Structure formats: structure tokens, C-alpha cells
């Protein structure tokens, strides 16, 4: 179902691009002010690199339809992540997004030493995400005389395809599908050129979904609420710098400990500092330093996964 939707979505985006957003749909040429549509997060929703914001993606403003497409690459000590994503923004009110993540998990091969999991060398975990976001209240940019932020609610339905790591997920008792629910509040303090966002996410995902959803441990299978924060400083009409912090659940560590593996399955918070560059309304580049904490530290000698993040987005 996800596959078909993804193909349909990609096809419709290409068609829109090809006919230059035909007459029946208002052109998103002027539309939003620069950088106020956020960038594509790794889950596909518009926001910061790691977390969704209350802004609706693309250049489209009220009465318009617009889209974005992005390619993102994250590389840390032991892992790599490539993300292809696209989003459609409708009337600055509704956002539909798709993301396809490809996580290089070559250290997972070592898990075969613990049990006959049958993990292949250079294993990859795929994660598909469909996102829907609706702006429900507020105006992030123009209500500069009010404290009220722009508020949106959203969901990210995720399906993981773990390949040969599937047996590990079975051992964890984690499911292959799950839906994150979130509410975001975004405010641009226009006079100060400062954008602030707070997101509250309800999730069962382990490592954002890469290690499935929920766990077999009693008491560790439920949803938890995780706050996420972003702050960005507009340095010029083309540049913004900022930082993000994403609190994460840690549902698998207990299971690993019970299996005699100690803190091998510990999960940490994610954070980054970034710089975004938008030379035109149609293209932006984001460079970040990320700290993804420990990801299955048992197979990475407890190294913190830090490294670079690069994302290129086209917007129309």
C-alpha cells in the first residue's frame, strides 16, 4: 500500500512539475517568504532536519498548492542514512509527505555472534513514512504583535522493512508498523529574526522506527510522549543557523539487559546544530552536525554516533 502510494505521489509531483503547475492550480511563485516553510525533516514533514514544525511545507501560501522534494544524507561513525522525501502543501493548511529512508546497519552483522539471527553483511534497514499535517491555529510569521504561535497536528505512519535484521526485530518483540502522532507550535519572533518550535510526539518507535515499534518487554510496549525543540536564527535573507533537540524513548535497553546484554540496546536523544542556505525560493541546502547518541551501542563499542548531515531541497 505504501509502495503504491509512494509511486502515485511521485508521479503526481512529476506531472505538476512538468506542466509548471497548470492553470487550474494557483502558481506558488510568490507565496511564502524565504525560509518560512522550513526544510524537509528526515521523516518527510516540513520543519527542521530532525523534527517537524507547525509550518506547512513548500512555497504555497493560502489559495495555492506547492511541493518540495529533498535528498538527505547522514553519516556517523558506524552508520549511514539516506533519505528521499517529497511533500505537498495545500493552501498553507494541509501537508502530505512521503519519505523513504535507507539505513546502512553493517555493524548488525556482529549480532550473529550473540544468536543465529542470520543478519547479512552490510545489512540495510528501509523505513517508509507517510505524513499528514494540518495547521489548526495561529500564524507563525505575521502576527508579530501576539505571542500565540502557529499550531499544527500531524501523524507519521511508518513501516520498517528490516531485511535480514528482521529476526532481530522479532527477538525484540517490536512490530513492523507504527504511527507517531504529534502537535507542534512554531513562532517566528520577526523583530528578532528568531524562529522557535516545540513539538510533542506520541510514539512507540525505537530509534525513530528503525528498530521497529514497541517491544516485547511488559510495561515497555506503550506509547510515550517525547518533546522536541528547535531554534533558528535568521542571519540574512539567505542564511539561517539553528539547533534541535529531540528527546527519545529508551524502550529496548531493559530487554537487552534482561537478555544479559547490559546496555547494548540503549537509545539516546538526538540533537544537531545546522546552517541552512536558500539562494533562491526554489532551492535550499542544509548542513548540520548531528549527535544521534548511541544506536545499539552493544555492536558499536558504545560509540556515540556523531557526524555530518547534508540535505538538498527543491521547492515549488
Amino acid at each position: 500500500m505504501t509502495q503504491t502510494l509512494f509511486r502515485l505521489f511521485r508521479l503526481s509531483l512529476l506531472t505538476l512539475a512538468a506542466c509548471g503547475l497548470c492553470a487550474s492550480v494557483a502558481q506558488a511563485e510568490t507565496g511564502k517568504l524565504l525560509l518560512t516553510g522550513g526544510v524537509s525533516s528526515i521523516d518527510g514533514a516540513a520543519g527542521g532536519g530532525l523534527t517537524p514544525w507547525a509550518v506547512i511545507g513548500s512555497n504555497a501560501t493560502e489559495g495555492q498548492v506547492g511541493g518540495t522534494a529533498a535528498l538527505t544524507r547522514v553519516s556517523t561513525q558506524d552508520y549511514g542514512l539516506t533519505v528521499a522525501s517529497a511533500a505537498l502543501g495545500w493552501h498553507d493548511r494541509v501537508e502530505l509527505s512521503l519519505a523513504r529512508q535507507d539505513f546502512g546497519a553493517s555493524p548488525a552483522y556482529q549480532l550473529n555472534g550473540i544468536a543465529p539471527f542470520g543478519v547479512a553483511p552490510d545489512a540495510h534497514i528501509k523505513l517508509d513514512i507517510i505524513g499528514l499535517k494540518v495547521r489548526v491555529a495561529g500564524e507563525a510569521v505575521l502576527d508579530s504583535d501576539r505571542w500565540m504561535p502557529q499550531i499544527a497536528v500531524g501523524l507519521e505512519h511508518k513501516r520498517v522493512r528490516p531485511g535480514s535484521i528482521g529476526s532481530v526485530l522479532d527477538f525484540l518483540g517490536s512490530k513492523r508498523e507504527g504511527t507517531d502522532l504529534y502537535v507542534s507550535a512554531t513562532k517566528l519572533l520577526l523583530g528578532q529574526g528568531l524562529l522557535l518550535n516545540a513539538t510533542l510526539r506520541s510514539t512507540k518507535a525505537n530509534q525513530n522506527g528503525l528498530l521497529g515499534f514497541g517491544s516485547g518487554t511488559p510495561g515497555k510496549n506503550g506509547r510515550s510522549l517525547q518533546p522536541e525543540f528547535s531554534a533558528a536564527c535568521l542571519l540574512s535573507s539567505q542564511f539561517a543557523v539553528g539547533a534541535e533537540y529531540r528527546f527519545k524513548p529508551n524502550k529496548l535497553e531493559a530487554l537487552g539487559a534482561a537478555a544479559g546484554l547490559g546496555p547494548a540496546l540503549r537509545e539516546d536523544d538526538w540533537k544537531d546544530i545546522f546552517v541552512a542556505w536558500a539562494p533562491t525560493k526554489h532551492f535550499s541546502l542544509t548542513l548540520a552536525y548531528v549527535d544521534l547518541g548511541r544506536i545499539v551501542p552493544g555492536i558499536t563499542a558504545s560509540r556515540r554516533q556523531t557526524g555530518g548531515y547534508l540535505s538538498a531541497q527543491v521547492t515549488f
Partner: protein
Amino acid sequence: MKTLLPSAVLLALMSTGMAGAQTPGLPPQAPAAGPPRNIEVSATQTSALYVALGEKAGIAALVNDFVDHVREDPLIGVMFQHIKPAHLKGQLGDKICVAVGGPCVYDGETMKGAHTDLKIDRVRFNAMVEVLQASMRRQNIAFSTQNQLLAMLAPMHRDIITVR
């Protein structure tokens, strides 16, 4: 952004009000009310933002650049064609001066009154902001000062945008 009625029309409206409604045999009545006169005076005399914009001369140069370019804009230029540029520049200059705490008086129409029938949507409003941003860049106004001015003017969107 069309902000004000041409002065001739405004004068005509005011004159009608001032003529009064005096009926013979009855005690003289107070002059009938004309359209509400909107006079705005800034609370503080010289603010940092007013100085940063180059005071009266700086604001005049900015407004001059803005009006000249907005009249040529392919999307919204048509809305400005029937207003005398010199008049618009004068009134806009006063409006901005008051908004940023300069020593000015703005006696034009309210934002709401001036824009009711223009059917301005968010697309056109954003386009106008972009013309203003381009003018500020050409006038070498510092980015932080630009944002402070925008922060003063942005709330006017509630009165100016009538198509949602």
C-alpha cells in the same frame, strides 16, 4: 499596497460633513459626522528603529523606492495605478514614521478602510512584502532593521487581507 484614498476624494467627503444640516427655524445643530478622521501620532519621539532607518530622509528614500517598484510589479502593480505616486509616498512615509516611533503625524485612512474593496489575498500581501524587502535591500538597510520594520507592519495583514 493601496493605503489611502486620493486626497481630493478625502477632502470632498470631509467638506460634506462640515457643511452641517441646518434646518431653518430649528436651533443650530452640530455638523453631521463625516467619515471618521483617523489621526495617529507616535507615542515616543525618537526611537532606535526610526534612527536606524535614517529618520525622515531614510524613510522617504525607502518609500520612494518601494512605490516606484510596486507600481511596476506584474502581480500587484495594477492596484496602484490610479493613485498619485507623490501622494502615496507622502502618506506611506508618515504611516511608517509613526509605526517606528518617529515624530510624525499620519492623517490618512485606516488600513481597514483603505483596503476593504481591494480583494487582497495572502499571495498579493506576500508579494507586497517582497517588494518592500527588495527596496530595503537596495537602500542598504541592515537585515535586523528590516525585520524590526516588518515586525511593526506585519500585524496590518489582519486589516489588509480580505480574501482568505
